[in-house]
């Protein structure tokens, strides 16, 4: 493919869209935009590190798995890459209801990067360019390209920044610090500064990573083995089956001795000594933070995750630390099974610049500069999946803008991605933002297994799906429809039912309609269909129908909330309002509303710092405005 800088740099003719950064956000942004027909360049410092997993070698997890499925339903890459490179697949929360199941997989780290790059190389109008971007070119509040460190500028209509932890990245190990965005890589300077010059507000966040251990120095026999699901469930709706050989993970624990040694290092902790002032994620605390805050706990659980088939590195999940080298080395040796363990790479903390995302529209385009989009950690999120989701949305929107389509926005009631972006824009992120299922108030409807039909209309409208994807989803939808009719008109005989559910469910006397009998928790629709010789329905359609009937009562209550939610979303605030002039609003609300300029009353109500009292004031204000504009004025 065309992976060189085009020589001619005529204004606006190089590319439609430049994506800066080859991480998970960059991959999705570039591929979505290219698939929508735009000429796209992805610029990254090292082409061999496209899709490199800087932190733990896993994709998905609770709530994050749902994000990956949604990305996939919108034609994204992540699910397909992990399906090709995963070595340990597991459906989490399987003991609970389908709404909170989440797929997770360990990846072979190298393989993931190779697959990612290969996939991008096969997209026809996408150029991969090696280079270090050090500035954004802006003309009268409109982006027109980027400047590279050691070659000339490249021009484009839009620029998507997905720079991860690279903006002025600073790595800390003990009291030592190194300018770097990821162990072994340079930092990116210049971009933050050029944006701050344009009036952007920047902040600083922190995240951390644990040490990597040498596989050959670990005594796995004393560790608890954790086996993956067999057979594995793929992430992508288009993957038929997973071909890779599964390998296990291991569980270990720290102990008092470990904690004592770690405590010795506290005086040299960049966190505790105040060298790091930026805020890190509370849901991903360092091991020193855990023993400091929960001193009564005698042990902490650790996951030893292999980084690949060939790779000798083991990722020590749960042991994120920025304590000095000697402390890390000694503390690890106290853990059963790790007495002889050698550290291949030390754990560290990294600080980086981010831009508080209230500066963005729902499209992830910046409010300040037309055509400039931000996605991923630059917006204060953490996690590959969160980054990828934003990359996808920014890519779709950048392309939609060029193709003169309406902006793409998912509602909170439609997708985790909708929750993610809505939260980012309206809640001030004080710590790196991570998705949780509890953030999604309508999670009962946002299942990982229905993402394809849930987002189908959007995906079709923006041309994100391949022909075979469209055919597949259409088939599933048809199967769901026909099965929905089927269960309403077909019975199961008492004899058949009592036979298969003998001792499991109470006996029935009369034939029962399928949609009535499957309300019983212990009754399974697939099984009933089998005994009534209707086994031509695909399993995913059966699950969809069964869920909606079995949990109808609960879903109804949540549905009422969705309707209320939509009502407020539809109360559009169409014009720019000077909130500073509305004295009845609290000062904080005035500032926040002015800053964000919500598009609806619903959005206003979710802005942090805006209280229900402020919302009533706003409602009164809007009513009055409406009233005044309808009444002809005197004089």
């Amino acid at each position, binding site marked *: 493919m065309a992976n060189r800088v085009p020589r001619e740099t005529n204004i606006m003719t190089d590319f439609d869209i430049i994506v800066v950064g080859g991480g998970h956000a960059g991959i999705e942004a570039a591929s979505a935009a290219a698939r929508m027909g735009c000429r796209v360049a992805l610029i990254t410092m090292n082409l061999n590190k496209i899709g490199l997993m800087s932190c*733990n070698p896993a994709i998905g*997890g*609770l*709530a994050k798995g749902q994000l990956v499925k949604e990305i996939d339903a919108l034609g994204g890459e992540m699910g397909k890459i992990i399906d090709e490179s995963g070595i340990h697949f597991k459906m*989490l*929360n399987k003991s*609970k*209801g389908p*709404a*909170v199941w989440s797929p997770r997989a360990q990846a072979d780290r190298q393989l993931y990067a190779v697959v990612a790059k290969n996939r991008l190389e096969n997209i026809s109008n996408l150029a991969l360019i090696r280079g270090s971007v050090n500035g954004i070119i802006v003309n009268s509040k409109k982006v027109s390209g980027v400047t590279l460190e050691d070659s000339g500028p490249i021009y484009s209509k839009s620029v998507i920044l997905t720079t991860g932890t690279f903006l002025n990245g600073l790595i800390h190990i003990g009291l030592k610090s190194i300018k770097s965005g990821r162990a072994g890589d340079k930092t990116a300077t210049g971009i933050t500064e050029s944006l701050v010059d344009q009036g952007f507000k920047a902040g600083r966040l922190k995240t951390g990573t644990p040490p990597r251990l040498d596989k050959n120095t670990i005594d796995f026999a004393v560790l608890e083995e954790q086996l993956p699901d067999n057979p594995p469930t793929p992430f992508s709706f288009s993957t038929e089956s997973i071909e890779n050989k599964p390998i296990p993970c291991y569980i270990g624990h720290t102990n008092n001795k470990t904690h004592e040694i770690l405590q010795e290092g506290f005086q040299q902790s960049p966190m505790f000594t105040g060298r790091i002032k930026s805020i890190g*994620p*509370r*849901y*991903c*605390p360092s091991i020193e933070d*855990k023993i400091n*805050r*929960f001193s009564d*706990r005698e042990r*902490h*659980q650790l*996951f030893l995750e292999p980084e690949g088939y060939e790779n000798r590195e083991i990722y020590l*999940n*749960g042991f*994120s630390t920025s304590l000095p080298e000697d402390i890390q080395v000694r503390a690890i040796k106290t853990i059963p099974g790790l007495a002889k363990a050698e550290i291949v790479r030390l754990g560290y903390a990294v600080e980086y610049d981010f831009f508080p995302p209230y500066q963005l529209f729902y499209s992830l385009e910046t409010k300040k500069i037309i055509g400039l989009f931000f996605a991923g950690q630059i917006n204060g999120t953490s996690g590959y999946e969160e980054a990828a989701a934003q990359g996808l949305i920014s890519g779709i929107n950048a392309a939609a803008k060029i193709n003169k389509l309406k902006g793409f926005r998912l509602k909170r009631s439609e997708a985790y991605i909708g929750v993610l972006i809505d939260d980012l824009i309206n*809640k001030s992120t004080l710590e790196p933002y991570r998705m*949780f*299922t*509890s*953030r999604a*108030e309508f*999670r*009962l409807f946002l299942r990982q297994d229905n993402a394809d039909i849930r987002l189908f209309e959007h995906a079709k409208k923006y041309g994100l799906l391949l022909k075979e994807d469209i055919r597949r989803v259409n088939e599933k939808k048809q199967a769901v429809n026909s099965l929905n009719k089927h269960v309403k008109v077909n019975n199961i005989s008492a004899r058949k039912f009592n036979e298969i559910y003998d001792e499991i469910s109470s006996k029935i006397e009369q034939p029962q309609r399928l949609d009535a009998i499957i309300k019983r*928790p212990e009754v399974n629709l697939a099984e009933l269909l089998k005994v009534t010789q209707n086994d031509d329905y695909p399993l995913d359609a059966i699950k969809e129908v069964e869920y909606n009937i079995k*949990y109808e009562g*609960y879903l109804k*209550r*949540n549905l009422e*909330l969705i309707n209320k939610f939509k009502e407020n979303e539809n109360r559009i605030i169409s014009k720019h309002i000077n909130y500073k002039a509305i*004295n*009845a609003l*609290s000062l904080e609300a005035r500032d926040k509303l002015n800053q964000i300029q919500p598009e609806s009353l619903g959005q206003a109500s*979710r802005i*942090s710092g805006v*209280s*229900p*009292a402020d919302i009533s*004031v706003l409602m*009164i204000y809007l009513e009055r405005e409406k009233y005044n504009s309808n009444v002809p004025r005197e004089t």
Partner: protein
Amino acid sequence: MIKKTNTIVALATAIGAGSIAVVRVSGKDSISIVNKVFIGKNLEKADGNTIHFGRLKDKEKEIDQALVSVFKSPNSYTGENAVEISCHSNHFIVEDIVSVLLDNGARIADPGEFTLRAYLNHKIDLSQAEAISNVISSKSRLATRNSIMQLEGSLSKKVKSIKKDLIDLISFMELDLDFSEEDLEVIPKEEVLEKIEASKINIEQLLNSFNKAKYLSGALEIAIIGKPNAGKSELLNSLLGEERAIVTNLPGTTRDTIEENLTLKNMLLKISDTAGIRFSKNHVEKKGIQRTWNRVERADIVLWIIDISKSINEQDAEIYNTLKNYYNKDILVVGNKTDLCFKNETRAKVNSFNLPTINISAKTGNGLEELKEMIAKTINLKYEHLGEEIIITNTRQIESLKSTFRSLSEAKISLNDGAGNEFVVVDLRNALNELGLITGETATEDILNNIFSGFCIGK
């Protein structure tokens, strides 16, 4: 014609409730408007929070002497410029003052508009706003006391503590959904049920207090009962100070219950006169007597009238037994017709009932004051503890509490049906959102914050 401004005026106290009436004015022009009709200091030059003595005039005519308090924005009840005029509590004076202010550019406040403005200017929160509107509308001392307690936020406090319990519970359940990979203990179903039940009880208590609130809003009930001809109607009339009920010397005069409002020692009460109790075959009278007992059922205090110029018979004993066995009421025995007894030689030995007793003459008014004192004391004794309790008087709050209660019940049913946490939490969150309507806050981020601060999570 003077242009109307957005300055509002209204009487802030009830006429007749005291010797001083307060007329309140609020809005940007309130000080200048009052100044136009005030003879005394130039109020426009006065500092905020100052009081000035002077006279009010309508053109050249003097209306009344008055104390005028000046408040400057934002340091007033409404947050706007405001003036409070204290004048004599006389219907005509008050009317004159309000109308001269209207002539000078103020307009009559809509009901609750002062409070609305205070609320819009963030001087008070929602539950305070509602408490204030109750102060304004409450006519009795006890109600005022309770309204003030709401103002001080004891309702908010109680609701917040229920909210905190719910947030803790939801956090536990969310933990199990969002962090199930972690090495954490799961909250057992029995404990969840227990916690839901505890919150339900707390809410129920608040809801019950609504029933008590009827005492405070002037719905405290007194029933006058007794044998025919004991003088029940006479007593009602003399307590009311008007000839409300028909009084004759024929036993069985009153056939139906008569209910009236009575202000007694600053308390607003409901008082009823009833049909005399005796064995009767007359259908109408029987019905009336049934109503008497229904009244007893509803009443908080029963005044049992006995004609002490006559001896006690089985009928009295029967009334006593019925009261004792079937009704758990505060009973005051009122010996009536002392004027007929020579030197307090009462024939009926009313003391023998072992109940608080007082002798009066409904006809001459002798002992009436003491009876009133006694009633007041009984009420105070009975409801003194209300001072420590929160009383819900507002229907919106009641509705929110009821919805909360319903959602908690639904959560319980879901749990017992074996529904997963993700379903139960929907109900619990609904409950939480409903409570948020009372205190005016949402709890969206609270749950995650609670999880992060309370549990060792994260890999």
